[in-house]
Each structure stands twice: as structure tokens, then as C-alpha cells.
């Protein structure tokens, strides 16, 4: 469902992704691991359509379409969702308003009718229970004054409501204590389905104890250097990243 071919991306003058190849089949969970500065966040930002990243070469095919030609909102309506590493605080924009506007934009795009206020709230309440979120979240500004853990939970709540086909999780475990991590992982796991593909980017193996990936990739120096199953993550945890780099250089 997602096919990235020879992707080169520059941020300003600096090349960050240098010929990245990755193929993800529908319904799978992939983890992309790598040292700091390897280009993990750049990859998911580019996939979500963030400005400021220049694709100089390569292509991204998503469900048979050229993903890079779409505006961020078109990608979202086509089922792409990015859970931010640093969710943005937007005082004055209501949480529930954003959820509703987003969901209805997606439904409209799919040719479905908009949800009325009652059905919408029923849906949101059910998802909030899953994320162990308090009712009061609904009427607060988007992420306004949320703790780190609350912000991450809110990201997964949005994911649960918007039901994406491709979810990109950017360092979703960062800044979470163990209890919050459990809630967040629980939320993500409950969203696993054959109709949903999850690509999570993480620095640590810890998250993978909770969300078990089908495939693990090592991203370093702008390319996928090695792919394997979840045992690769354990090996990385033990041995670090250097041996992968050396192996790649040797090859």
C-alpha cells in the first residue's frame, strides 16, 4: 500500500534522506529505528506533506497514487495520519471542534454523510474511554496546557476517531512514563486491523515491547540499511547501531 523508491530529501541545503527505499504492505505494522539525526522524523513529515522539505529525487506511491502530489489535507482525507512527536498547542481552537471538522471532511471526501452532533459525541466518548481521557478534554483548546502524556494520548484519540488507513507514529513513546506508555500502546493495538497499516518511528526498543511490529527497519544516514523482524530490534537494543553501519559499509 506504500512504496517509497529512492527518496532523496533536502532540508534547506542539507540532504537528509539519500535514496530511501521502503515497501509496506497493507495491514502490517512496521517499526523504523535509527540513531538521532538519521532522518526518521523527516521521513514521516514528508509523507504527511509538511512544508520545508524538498524532495529532489524519488517517488512515494500510496494505494497506487503519487502521494507527494497531494496537499496535506488531501493525504489526510485519503487516509494518511501523522501522530506528531510534538503535538501543537492551539489555544482558541476547540478539541472537539477539530475532531468533528476533521472527521466530517474525511467522510465527505469518501462520499459519506456528515455525522450529526449526537452520533459524533457518542463515537468520541467511546474512543475517549479507550484512551482513558476525561470528558473535560473535549472542550479544551487543542492540546492547550496538556501534559506530555495527555498530548500523546490526544494524538491517538484523533487517530481512533479519524480511522486512517496509514498511521505514521512519530516517536510516540518519547516523554511518556510507563503508565502513559501502556495506555497509548493499548490504544494503538486496539486500532490494529487488516485495513490499517502502521509505520512507527522510534529511537528506543521500549515501545516495541508494547506494540509488536511485523517488520523492523534500521534507518541511518538517510537510507534503510537493514530490515528484519522484531528480533532485529532486540539485537539493536543489545548491540547499538554501529554494527549495522559497518555491515552496510562492508557490503
Amino acid at each position: 500500500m506504500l512504496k517509497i523508491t529512492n527518496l532523496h530529501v533536502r532540508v534547506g541545503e542539507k540532504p537528509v534522506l539519500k535514496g530511501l527505499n521502503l515497501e509496506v504492505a497493507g495491514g502490517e505494522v512496521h517499526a523504523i529505528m535509527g540513531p538521532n539525526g538519521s532522518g526518521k522524523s523527516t521521513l514521516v513529515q514528508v509523507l504527511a506533506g509538511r512544508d520545508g522539505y524538498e524532495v529532489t529525487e524519488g517517488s512515494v506511491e500510496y494505494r497506487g497514487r503519487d502521494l507527494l502530489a497531494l496537499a496535506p489535507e488531501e493525504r489526510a482525507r485519503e487516509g494518511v495520519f501523522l501522530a506528531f512527536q510534538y503535538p501543537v498547542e492551539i489555544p482558541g481552537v476547540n478539541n472537539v471542534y477539530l475532531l468533528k471538522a476533521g472527521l466530517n471532511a474525511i467522510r465527505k471526501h469518501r462520499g459519506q454523510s456528515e455525522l450529526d452532533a449526537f452520533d459524533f459525541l457518542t463515537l468520541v466518548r467511546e474512543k475517549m474511554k479507550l484512551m482513558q481521557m476525561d470528558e473535560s478534554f473535549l472542550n479544551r483548546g487543542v492540546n492547550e496546557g496538556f501534559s506530555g502524556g495527555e498530548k500523546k494520548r490526544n494524538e491517538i484519540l484523533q487517530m481512533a476517531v479519524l480511522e486512517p488507513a496509514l498511521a505514521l507514529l512519530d516517536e510516540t513513546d518519547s516523554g511518556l512514563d510507563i503508565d502513559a506508555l501502556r495506555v497509548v500502546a493499548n490504544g494503538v493495538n486496539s486500532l490494529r486491523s487488516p485495513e490499517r497499516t502502521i509505520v512507527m518511528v522510534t529511537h528506543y526498543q521500549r515501545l516495541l515491547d508494547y506494540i509488536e511490529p511485523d517488520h523492523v527497519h534500521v534507518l541511518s544516514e538517510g537510507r534503510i540499511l537493514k530490515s528484519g523482524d522484531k528480533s532485529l530490534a532486540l539485537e539493536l537494543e543489545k548491540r547499538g547501531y554501529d554494527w549495522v553501519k559497518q555491515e552496510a559499509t562492508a557490503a
Partner: protein
Amino acid sequence: MSAVAPKISALERYRAAFEARWPQSDPLTRLRRAALEEFIEQGFPTQRQEAWKYTNLRRLESRSFEPSTAPAAIDAAQEGWIAHGGARIVFVDGRWSAALSSSSVQPPGVTMLPLGQWFRRDPEQAAAFVESLAPKRSTAFERLNMAFFEDGAVIQLAEGARTDEPIYIVHHWSAQAAGRMAHPRLLLRAARGSRCTLIEQHLGPADLEYFTNAATIVELEAGAELRHYRLQQESTRSFHIGLSSARLQADSRYFLHDVALGASLARHDVAAVLEGRGAHVELQGLFAPEGSQHMDVHTHIDHAAPCTTSAEDYRGVADGRGRGIFNGKIAVHPDAQKTDARQSSRNLLLSPTAEIDARPELEIYANDVKCSHGATIGQLDETALFYLRSRALSQEQARALLIRAFAESVLTSIDHEPLRTYLEHRLEARFSASGENPS
């Protein structure tokens, strides 16, 4: 088209208009004439004056506006008015409209009457009242208003009178307003412990060039409270000059909600003098120039007594080639110890050709005071825009939402529900339309 020969200066045109309109010599006309002479002597303010540094009045000066002669024919509530069941005073082209104003019984302890009517009935008394309720600091345009006002409203609250339903004052320009000027004067005196809410609205049909020069002068006795909503929605070709002047006695409170969306050239002077211990003033403002609109807000708060407090929050949103100016002066007099003054000016530029100047001006002559001020000018937050778009909202939707959020504080502070709903819709329409035609 000017009816006056082009060689005559703007000031002479005003003098001629004055002589034609007020040939008599009664106490009021003497007051008017004195004001006119002072205005003429000083002339229109120029950009050499600090208070007019950013606003050029040559365009206003070059026009020959005439006082309107007869009430214009509008006979029903107009689109753009706020749904309101309580007391309503309507002025059309600067003159009181009996037909459109409410004739219902006035709230107990509240006296409201049209200024023009009072002058016809009891000129001596009315003139004395007008003279007694002059702003502490006059301005060129207040003097011009004094010289030319045809009508206005007088509102007096008796001691302890309290009315929760707002008094709604509409200044509406008719389709015949082109080339006309009006100088409505609104005088409010609130006796001890009284309280009321005032909605002052200025509006006119699109594309008409006219000149409003409104003065609202308020006096609050000890413990009195006024909540003053001011909505400036004039035609985008018009000139609007406004003054909101308030004097506050001990423990009185003045809340001004100042929203400016209209006019080609708008200037609003807010002057509050805290004369009594414990007096409190709060200003919440929003100005949103777009197209080639020019909006200038000057606020001046005088802390002239101890333990007085002020809080000021102005937001500017400029789009297109819009130009905004916020100048906020706070003066703390030597004996005004324990003053607490807070000022914040936040501004948003939506286009590369929009411009806003924000200038706090503090003059503090007391030593035991708390004064804070902050001014910011920025653009829409790109990260927030991307965040919203990544949640499937269109760029226009995301943009409108962020602008609305920026202006939100002025809405949340409105506790009169029909007015809040009204403004919500206006702002939504305004900001969702902005940016759709990037030039």
C-alpha cells in the same frame, strides 16, 4: 462632487457649513462656535503631531461633507442590526428616528432621551448639560463634533439604578448618505452605584463615502459600572472618527469592548481617566483592516488616583494592504500609588503587504506601582496550520480557524449572548473570506 469652489480651504468649508447650519445665537450655538473656532485655529491634525504620526488625514480634509438635512427614508430594522428586545435608540444619517427607536417604557431609574429633542424642548438646560459633560481632554475631532452635532443620546442613571438588558444605540447610514457627515454625541452619566450596558453600533451601506465623527462621553460616579460594546462596521469607503471618553470616580468600573471592522479610514481614541481611588478600567479590542483599510486605535489611560487598576488587551489582524495602528498610553500620576496597569497588544499579519504598528507608551510618575505591557506582531503559525491540515481541514478552513482563535478573546469576554452570537457570525464571515483572493 464638491459644491464649494476648490480654492477655499477645508477649514473655511467647515466654517461656511457651520454658518449656514447654525445662524442663531443661543447658549448652545455659542458653545458650538467656540469649539469651531478652536478647531479652525488648530486645523486638522497632521502627521507631524505624535498622536497622528501614522494616520494621514489629507484625504478626509479634501472632501466636502455636508450635514445631512432631513431624516432619510428607512423605516424598518436593517440587516446588520443585532437582535434586541430591550431599549433601542436609532439614528439614521445622524438623526434620531422615532419610528425605529423603541418606545417601550424605560427601565426604572434610567432616563434616555434624544439630544436633538431635548434641545428643541429646553435649549438652556440641554446646553448646560452638554457643557458639564465635556471630556477631560478634548481633541480636534471632539471639538468638531461639538460644533456640528445634530443629535445624539443622553442617558442618565439614577443612584443605584441597575439595568441588565443593554441599551442598544444604532447609528445607521442610509443609501442617501453619500457626501454627508454626522457628528453624533452620546452622553452618559451614571450616578452612584448604578450599572448598565451599552451597545454602540455604527454601520452603513457598502461603497458609500460619508464621514462619521462620533463622540461618546461617559461619567461614572462612585461605584457605578458601565459595560460599553462598540462596533464599528461602517462602509469600506467611509471615514470614521470616534472618541470614547470616560471619567471614573472611586470604585467605579468601565469595560469597553471595541471592535473595528469597517471604514476606509478609521480612528478611535479611547480616553479613560481614573480619578477616584479603586477605579477600574478594562479595554478589550479587535481591529481587522483588510483591502486598503486603515485603522488607528489610540488608547490613553490616566491613573490619577491611588489603587486604580487597568487591564487592556488589543488584537490586530491585518490582511491585504490593510494598515493597523495601536498606540496604548498609560500615565501614572505622582500620587497614584498602588496602581496596577496591564497592557497587551497582539497582532497578526496575514499578507506580506499588511502592516501594523504597535506602540506602548508608559509615563510613570509614582514609585509603588505595577505596570506591564507587551506587544507582539507575527504571522499565522505554520506548524499549527500544518497540524490542522494533517487532520483533514482545508488550508482555508485551517487559516480561518487560527485567525478566529486569535480573535477569540474579544468574543469570550462578551457576556451578552445575542451580541456574542452576532459577532461570532460576523467574524466567521470576515475571516473565512480573507485570504481567498490572494493578490
